[in-house]
């Protein structure tokens, strides 16, 4: 199966059956799945950013995009949405959803409080939060979530994670057989189609690629890593365009490796809910996380990725208005500078124009 056939078949599997939307990788999809819904990740711009005039000008474009779309009925096909309390902007998205509930679709929104720390007691506490979330999902779906059904969902999601890790392993090759643009599309499809279908179709395609395939590009390409929250896909497109001369090999981002890195470990915790709590709090962190366990982890995690994927430079993409990304930058810069890893800081929205000239000159400098 070639890539375009895979893409086509996965696209046909979108928007089928009862589904619940989610916006942040701290949402435990397994619980939504166990309640009988298809979790649908809203990860791309809706194009309705300008329609949100309610939340105030200093929200990030991701939140404006979601709320603008909700006001325009773009998510009407969903049965509800989960809005984690993961940052200040998401906090206010939920408030907008609640206070303008007559104007948004779908009307059901659940705010999930996610701790900012990963400690033994925060895992215990998050377990109780997730139990309440499970009850809410059960009430909505009228379907009982048992340990058994939850563990089945966890198995399915762990399989997805394992497949995506194998995909990323391909990007560690000297000449990767997949482009960054393809990987981004695959991740988007993975987040929006039922996981059972995705695992089947994607697994078959992946096995074929692993068995033997041509490099995605035959000319030399500078390997680039991206750090960000929800970054603008145009960056990858531009980096990999003929004439720019780069290839994106990994993304430490919410629409990248943070989505699937680390599995739910059912051997450590017998209680599947606690296993979920542990996995979501200990996964590769978004800069929202805090505390001593994270103090050094975000720059170190990125450094590890850069070394593992042999990236020659890093593009740090700040979604405008994201305080976490603004304030994490100096820490990342300090670490990368220490290791002489070139870094380019860009700021922008989740869609629209990017500073192409800056990207081009950054890649040109890497080639010297």
């Amino acid at each position, binding site marked *: 199966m070639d890539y375009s056939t895979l893409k086509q078949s996965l696209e046909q599997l979108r928007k089928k059956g009862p589904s619940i939307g989610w916006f942040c990788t701290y949402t435990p999809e397994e619980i939504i799945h166990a309640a009988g819904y298809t979790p649908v990740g809203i990860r791309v711009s809706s194009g309705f950013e300008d329609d949100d005039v*309610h*939340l*105030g*000008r*200093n*929200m990030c474009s991701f939140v404006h995009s979601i709320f603008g779309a909700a006001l325009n009925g773009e998510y009407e096909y969903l049965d509800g949405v989960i809005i984690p*309390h993961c*940052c*200040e*902007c998401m*906090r*206010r998205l*939920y*408030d*907008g959803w*609640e*206070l*303008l509930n007559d104007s948004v679709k779908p009307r059901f929104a659940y*705010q999930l*409080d996610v*701790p*900012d*720390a990963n*400690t033994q*007691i*925060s895992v*215990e*506490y998050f377990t*109780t*939060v997730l139990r*309440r979330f499970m009850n809410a999902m059960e009430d909505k779906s009228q379907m009982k979530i048992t340990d058994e059904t939850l563990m089945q969902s966890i198995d399915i999601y762990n399989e997805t994670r394992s497949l995506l890790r194998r995909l990323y392993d391909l990007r560690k090759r000297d000449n990767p057989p997949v482009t960054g643009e393809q990987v981004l599309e695959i991740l988007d499809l993975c987040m929006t189609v039922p996981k059972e279908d995705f695992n089947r179709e994607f697994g078959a395609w992946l096995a074929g690629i692993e068995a033997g395939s041509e490099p995605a590009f035959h000319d030399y390409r500078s390997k680039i890593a991206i750090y960000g929250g929800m970054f603008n896909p145009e960056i990858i497109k531009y980096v990999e365009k003929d004439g720019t001369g780069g290839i994106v090999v990994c993304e430490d981002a919410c629409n990248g490796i943070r989505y699937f890195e680390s599995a739910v470990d059912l051997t450590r915790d017998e209680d599947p809910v606690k296993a979920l709590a542990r996995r979501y709090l200990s996964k590769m962190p978004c*800069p*929202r996380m*805090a*505390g*001593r366990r994270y*103090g050094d982890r975000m720059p170190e995690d990125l450094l590890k990725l850069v070394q593992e994927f042999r990236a020659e430079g890093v593009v740090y993409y700040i979604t*405008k*208005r994201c*305080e*976490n990304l*603004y*304030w*994490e*930058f*100096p*820490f990342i810069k300090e670490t990368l500078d220490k290791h002489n890893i070139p870094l380019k*800081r860009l700021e922008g929205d989740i869609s629209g124009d990017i500073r192409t000239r800056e990207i081009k000159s950054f890649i040109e400098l890497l080639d010297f």
Partner: protein
Amino acid sequence: MTHRAIRSKQFGEFLALAKAKKDRSTMKDATEKMGELSNIPYDKLTAAQKRGRLITKLITRAYDPNEYVIWHSLFMPSEIFYGMGMVPFSTEMVSAGLAGAGLSKGLVEMGEMYTQCMDSCSFSTCTIGAITSDVFPIPDFLITTSQLCDPEKKLGRFASENYKRKDFFIDIPYGGCLLEGDAYDTAVDYVAKQLEYMVAFFERETGMKLDNEKLARALDNSNKAREWFLKIDELRANNPALIKGTKILDFSAVLLDIWGSEEAVDIFKTLHDELVESAAKGGMSEQYRIGWIHLRPYYDNTIINYLEEECGAYIVKEEINYIFWEAHDLNDPFRSIARKVLANPAYSPLTVKNKIYSDVIKKFRLDGMFGFAHKGCRHFYSSLHIASDSFKGKCPFIVIDGDCVDPRAYSFPLIKTRVDSFVDTMKIRKEGM
């Protein structure tokens, strides 16, 4: 300890900076103010002066090499620090003071060189500027909580790395005041346990022991101060405006590090007595009663002076003087402090705050709500705009975008037009067309 020895030098830098920028200050020069206040006998001071003296004392102690100084993020209850005999130092509140002293512009610019961002919260950016300019006292430890905003978490981390001092992070559940039954009890236990760990951390690091009697005294002081403040609220609700807006806003009851101190009890009692006296004289000649949401620009008093003196629109209730917590249970200190933390309406969905706004509008017979939206604050800026939508047709509600600390883009003439329309709206509603 070597880090403490540097504090005296930092105090010198701080005073020199304050003196150099004296002309920009909306307050008197910090040094003069300190000297002036210390010469007046304590019982002759007004409530605002007593508050000023206490803040000055806390800041001066923070530079003392013999003190344990704890930097902490906003809303961290200070009672425990008083119980431990430590000096709390809220960097962002001190940044507000720096703005009042005319120092914030330069420090914000310094901070922006670090964050490389002109769009972030200027309280935090100003703090970064103060750290890199070496005018803040080096802390012994840093306590950061997830309540309330994102930059604070990074700020604690930066300061900890910069000064090589240990930090301790406390995670606070969001929307705690909406939780009920077991969910609430679990949240209280979760926060209380972290507070106990924090105390254990202090004890381990310092060799000091928490003095339970001292903590109980601090909680008792806090309860007494709270009682006086509730009486102040009753007086203000049932009388014409009794005090100027700029004065009462600066009490910032929910933000200041005075809860737990003996002085706080006296400060609020004195304030109460002053308001009783003001009520006996008939209060201010108010035409409109307004509620003030969020903070004020600290570098300039024009907006409030204009509202009150020119328009007769007096501030009679402020969000930052809203006592949201129950009295402490002295027999259950950690859970009690945890309940205070969780009760914070600012760290809850906006429906909670909107309900409080409605109650306050009714209780204080407000003609309008005035929100000063600090543009760098994702949390309050957005919530103010959403809240103003919710009150359309119910109560005149104006939101002025601005910055509490950074004076660079401030222009009163631009704001004045909107303030005038707000006053006109109140007039029409009150008096008819």
